[in-house]
């Protein structure tokens, strides 16, 4: 295995926030939950993510409030450490205070109680353990042995109750969760058949007794007593929160329609807030037992992602299956779901063994103005419909344009848009019925009031073989469609079959054109070989024996990533089609086959990488493992920058942070700095001015660097323009910088400063782009002083004063910041 010291695979963005039960702080103002390798602190009132607590190197597997200091939280992780965090005092203290090394096999939720008890053969699910009455009582359940173990730390005994383990009943009455009454000797257990049993009187050896209540029709997933013990909350697949009166179990209240099946229930220590985490990676905050007050939605991890992973060019959001019948747009930068698009537009019935329409394919065109989706239901015969959605600038969302029912006779195996930049795009759908069809937008007669709609333009086949996949070349001039062992290359302009390529044995599983300088190469993967054809000579350039499960080209570079299935793990190779040696290879990336991955373009190219991670400069590679975890690669400089950033984000989002002596001490110091900043500009002030309606704006608005870069782009100082143009020329010689997609900036720019025309914006965009790299170049090469002076022509010469304030050990990252601050007032002055 090749060791790459500078890159590692991390959970970053879209990780499961419902992996473990969240924690509500003592004052019920914050909600702390695990999120991959970091811990997130949300405000329970505004749903805003306030802090990322970063420091664990592996998946965080447990969270618990420090019982002796309710402003601290313990966390444990698969990296074998337990860390203690201070979550309220802002970023200055959010580093691990305690680091305890444990054997790396710690998978169990750890409770810090000052006791040492070792339980053996405990199920690894933390739902199977509960503590009651301080440390007096523990209850554990074993779902396999159908028994409940109860132990008493004070009296030191341990009792085990068992239910019947034989017969048909036993299969259904397995324990699923357990909760202890906070005051009484009562243990509540949930069962697979939907019953809740309340165990009492277990302090005698055999005289224990239980009563049963039954409302849920399928297994009880979560149980929780309120802090006073007056109510018992339960939840399950029905997505209804049931509230039982303790002592009068006949009376119950319901909170229905919570969206999806409940996984965990947590109650705040004062009992005013309930919090349910759901299987669709959502946390619902419920106020006063009755009202849903906040919903924190993460990336929905369904049973399986049927569509390919895509990146929406407008919002830079990841697009994939979300809720059943929906596509979700998920911003990886903000780590927040932007919106859900209802594709199927039918009600989802939560019942097993029911065939319902599912979104199986989706494709976005290169500008993000068209979305094509395929939904399918295979009840008795396959029902397919192809839908095309146009992006509506006004509502900033996709609107259904054309529905084609039964576009093919068989299941559609792939759809793709041609990348041609002209107004008319072509959609190609490939089906197992032996045909591929090209669909085109037809403009109706101007006399009709009808809108433009899509219709079939061409139907192609090849010796009535089954096509599997299709791919357009980067400029859209060639279309490759694979029919079993044969790759056919077509011209989309005339629909002529140009050539066929074949490299038996083995049917082609995946196709991909090279990009940029390698655009003459066509890559094809069979289940045994990876072949590379040169389209100029129409001959095989090279081939190698690899079991490729996914072939993916980076749209911004020549790099191609190939995921290869080894025995039970997946290896990754990144290479250029023109070069025989891979740039990067990592073996045993993850277990299981990787079939979904995407190159997400970075907002700014990454610098300072080592050679082996050069391929990550322009794009970031995200991939889904077979158990639906979204993973990515993180380079070392990036990691350091993020660490620094997490310490940088000022706690201005929620000003009502609890006052601790530490906070006051630090606060005094910071206040002084903030006063200085306020004079220059208030970051939060700018943020408040932003219109909240547009998703794109929102997405950009949160991300600090984006704001900076956009703001930079809006200062039309002529002096700079000239100098930058020179830089631009020199940059273009390198030819490695591809033109960046421009919609985003034009959108946001229009919103920020409506006076500017589109052309100006485009210009400014280029300026901004280069301006940034130019500054960076200067910063790194250190003759900083002169240039900044030249640039900053405003009378605010206080720029210099914040400089010594940079306390972080990375001055390189910090230095661009003061420049941002100087530019901001300029925006404000120019706009009016």
């Amino acid at each position: 295995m090749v060791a790459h010291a500078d890159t590692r695979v991390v959970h970053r963005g879209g990780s499961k926030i419902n992996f473990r039960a969240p924690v509500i702080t003592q004052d019920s103002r914050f909600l702390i939950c695990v999120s991959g390798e970091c811990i997130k602190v949300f405000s329970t009132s505004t749903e805003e993510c306030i802090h990322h607590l970063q420091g664990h190197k592996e998946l965080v597997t447990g969270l618990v409030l420090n019982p002796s200091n309710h402003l601290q939280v313990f966390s444990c992780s698969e990296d074998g450490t337990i860390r203690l965090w201070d979550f309220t005092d802002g970023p200055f203290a959010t580093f691990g205070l305690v680091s305890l090394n444990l054997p790396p096999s710690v998978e169990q939720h750890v409770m810090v109680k000052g006791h040492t008890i070792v339980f053996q053969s405990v199920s690894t699910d933390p739902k199977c353990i509960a503590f009651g009455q301080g440390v007096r009582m523990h209850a554990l359940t074993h779902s396999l042995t159908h028994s409940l173990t109860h132990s008493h730390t004070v009296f030191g005994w341990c009792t085990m109750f068992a239910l019947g383990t034989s017969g048909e009943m036993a299969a259904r009455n397995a324990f699923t969760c357990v909760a202890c009454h906070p005051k009484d000797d009562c243990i509540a257990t949930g069962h697979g058949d939907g019953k809740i049993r309340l165990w009492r009187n277990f302090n005698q050896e055999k005289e224990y007794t239980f009563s049963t209540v039954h409302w849920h029709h399928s297994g009880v997933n979560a149980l929780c007593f309120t802090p006073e013990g007056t109510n018992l909350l339960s939840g399950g697949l029905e997505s209804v929160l049931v509230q039982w009166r303790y002592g009068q179990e006949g009376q119950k209240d319901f909170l229905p329609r919570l969206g999806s099946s409940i996984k965990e229930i947590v109650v705040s220590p004062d009992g005013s807030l309930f919090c349910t985490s759901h299987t669709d990676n959502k946390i619902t905050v419920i106020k006063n037992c009755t009202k849903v007050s906040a919903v924190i939605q993460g990336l929905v991890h369904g049973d399986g992602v049927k569509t390919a992973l895509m990146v929406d060019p407008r919002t830079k959001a990841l697009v994939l299956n979300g809720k059943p019948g929906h596509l979700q747009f998920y911003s990886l930068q903000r780590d927040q779901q932007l919106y859900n698009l209802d594709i199927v537009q039918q009600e989802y019935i939560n019942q097993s063994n029911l065939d319902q329409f599912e979104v199986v394919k989706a494709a976005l065109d290169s500008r993000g103005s068209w979305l094509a989706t395929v939904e399918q239901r295979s009840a008795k015969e396959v029902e397919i419909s192809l839908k095309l959605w146009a992006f509506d600038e006004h509502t900033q969302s996709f609107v259904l344009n054309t529905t084609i029912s039964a576009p093919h006779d068989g299941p559609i195996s792939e759809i793709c848009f041609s990348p041609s930049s002209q107004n008319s795009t072509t959609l190609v759908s490939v089906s197992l019925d032996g045909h591929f069809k090209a669909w085109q937008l037809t403009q109706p007669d101007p006399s009709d009031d009808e809108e433009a709609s899509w219709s079939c333009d061409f139907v192609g086949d090849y010796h009535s073989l089954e096509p599997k996949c299709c791919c357009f070349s980067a400029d859209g001039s060639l279309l490759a469609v694979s029919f079993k062992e044969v790759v056919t290359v077509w011209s989309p302009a005339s629909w002529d079959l140009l050539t066929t390529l074949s490299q038996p044995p083995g049917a082609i599983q995946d196709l991909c054109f090279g990009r940029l300088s390698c655009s003459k190469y066509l890559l094809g993967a069979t289940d045994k070989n990876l072949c590379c054809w040169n389209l100029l000579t129409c001959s095989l350039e090279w081939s190698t024996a690899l079991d490729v499960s996914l072939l993916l080209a980076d749209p911004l570079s020549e790099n191609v990533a190939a995921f290869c299935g080894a025995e039970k793990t997946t290896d990754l190779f990144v290479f250029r089609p023109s070069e025989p040696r891979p740039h990067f290879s990592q073996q045993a990336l993850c277990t299981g086959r990787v079939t979904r991955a995407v190159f997400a373009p970075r907002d700014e190219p990454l610098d300072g990488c080592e050679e082996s991670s050069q391929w990550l400069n322009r794009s970031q590679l995200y991939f889904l493992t077979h158990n639906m975890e979204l993973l990515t690669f993180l380079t070392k400089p990036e990691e350091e920058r993020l660490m620094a950033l997490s310490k940088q984000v000022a706690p201005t989002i929620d000003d009502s942070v609890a006052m601790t002596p530490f906070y006051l001490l630090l606060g005094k110091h910071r206040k002084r700095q903030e006063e200085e900043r306020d004079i220059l500009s208030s970051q939060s002030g700018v943020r408040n001015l932003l219109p909240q309606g547009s998703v794109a704006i929102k997405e950009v608005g949160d991300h600090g660097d984006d704001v900076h870069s956009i703001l930079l782009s809006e200062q039309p100082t002529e002096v700079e323009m000239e100098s930058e143009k020179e830089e631009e020329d020199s940059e273009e010689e390198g030819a490695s910088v591809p033109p960046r997609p421009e919609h985003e900036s034009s959108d946001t720019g229009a919103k920020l400063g409506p006076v500017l025309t589109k052309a100006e914006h485009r210009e400014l965009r280029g300026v901004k782009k280069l301006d940034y790299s130019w500054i960076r170049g200067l910063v790194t090469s250190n003759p900083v002083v002169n240039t900044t002076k030249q640039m900053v022509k405003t009378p605010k010469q206080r720029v210099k004063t914040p400089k010594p304030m940079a306390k972080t050990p990375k001055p390189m990252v910090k230095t661009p910041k003061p420049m941002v601050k100087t530019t901001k007032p300029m925006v404000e002055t120019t706009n009016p």
Partner: protein
Amino acid sequence: MGEFKVHRVRFFDYMPSAISAMAFNVHTERLAVARADGTVEIYNFADNCFQEKVIPGKDGRTVEALCWAGQRLFSTGLNGEIVEYDLENLRSKYTVEAYGGPVWTISSNSQGTQLAVGCEDGTVKIFELVEDSIQFQSNFDRLKSRVLSLSWHPSGTQIAAGTMDMIRVFNVTTGHATQRMMVDRAAGANKKKEVAVWSVVFLSDNTVISGDSAGKVQVWDSQMGTLIRTHLVTKWDVMALAVSRDESSLLAGTSEGSVVQFQFISARLDQPDKEWQRTRTLRSHSHDVRALVHTDTAAVSGGNDAHLVVRPFMEKVVKGSKESAPCKITFPHRSLVSCGKKAGILLFQFPERLEVWRLGESNENGEELSVTKKPEALIHLKRKGDDHICCSTLSPCGGWLAYASASSVRLFQLQYDNDSIALTKVEMGPLHVLLWFVFFVPHYLPSPSPPPPEVSKQAVHLMSTSDDGQWLATANSDCEVHVYNLKKLKYHCTVPVYGSCPSAMAIHPTGSNVVMVHADQKIFEYSLEQKEYTEWSRSLAKKGLHGSWLNRVAPVTHVSFSASNPDYIILHDMNMFCIIDKSLPLPEKDSDLVGAETQLISNSSVFPSVFKNLLCVGLMEDHSLVVVERPLLDIATRLPAPVRQKKFAT
């Protein structure tokens, strides 16, 4: 083992009668069960819940309540009489008119000296128990409405009485009411309907617990007259309450057919305060639970669906033992069917009539035969008089039929030529011995001279004759088996007394051995000629029976033999029948018994899955097997509709 042609008889439409009252005698461990037709059955809980005695009912007598006072059993009914039963002769001893209209309830104090009855006219009357009779003692203050339930305080100084809308507490010595506790009516539309307090329980800590028609179980403080706690158990009625002897557990039976358990437990280990917590819900009935008994180890319930259900509390019994098996008694532990072996006819006994049927015939061979000649009802014979038929029999030749009630025995001669049937009554002299009959009537046991001196006074519940008419064996509820020589009309011998009551008995047709199966499932074979247990019986006793045979709940109710193979013994109980081959070696005690063809004792076949709910299995002369079944589903469909319950997703 051979193949049998099996007559699967399902045309015996036997209907068990609903259970209306129960009383448990803790000291003798006898449970008295009263049914709606006036029958009173005595079950011996010390002997595997065996139905020891049956006191047949009488037209016009219903039993609303039962109570034990020491060894004496009393009942009351809506005819306004108090009945004491003669448990030796299995009939009513005397009746006393209460003069208060229909009597709803009867209760004796814990000392067994006084009886309290609650009458329709609102009076509570106290009767004193005297030798062989009871004597009216006093009337309490008259209440405005009928007294539905009564409960003595364990000290015997106070009585709680449940009436409509109210619970009253009386001082026994003065006869005055000391407390009045008003019971809330049901909410909503039933607000105007009075609440009937169907059951009260007076505990020794002066707590009164009531169950009422609004579905509540309420806990009261009788000294202050205040309500402590209400448990809403059902939408319908709570018909019965029963408390354990140590007063830590309470059962409430509802009209939904469920039995709810409450336990007196403390909320926390270190707190002494205890309260009644609802714990388990047992669902063993489809209809109203009318009567409940809380024994030390089990909940015994009976109701309108006529099942007597014994549900042990798992924490009180050893797991896997015989006590831990739940038990549902539907059919009587005695035979209601007799076979005319030679003639191929069956006699069915109902409380008020007898039916004689001829079996159907079939000419086919194979797995399932279609009936070419349908079974035919030959005779419907209605009894005379008020007393219910308690036993009946048919001679093997099919020519004689006899039945007995509490007051008389009748003998008939049957004659049939093809279609016409003639039934003639035969007058019996007092010592007219009917050799081929098996009579279950103790009073008419032909008393040979002289009877053995030590014979007990208990009624005979089993009789068996040998086919040649030489031997007669009788068994009584003191577990004694006596053998008489009928040819000499002399007492022959007594089988050594075993501790469990014989549940089935038969004399072998050739070997003059008597085979007895006891209520605890033990099997013995006794040679009448040698007057000792046979070799096979000894080896069986030595080896011990298999655990899964011993843990069966239902007692064997019939023993018969195969004429073709003298080694075969055919046994059956309610759930299965099996054939034992004595010639085969005995299985190991702890070997696994798997499958239908299991080896229980010796090489025996058990058919539990094929035949269910058996009333009789008999072998006819032509080697065909008659299996009389009464499916429980058929019984359930003939019951009135149960109260409506909301089911999930309806």
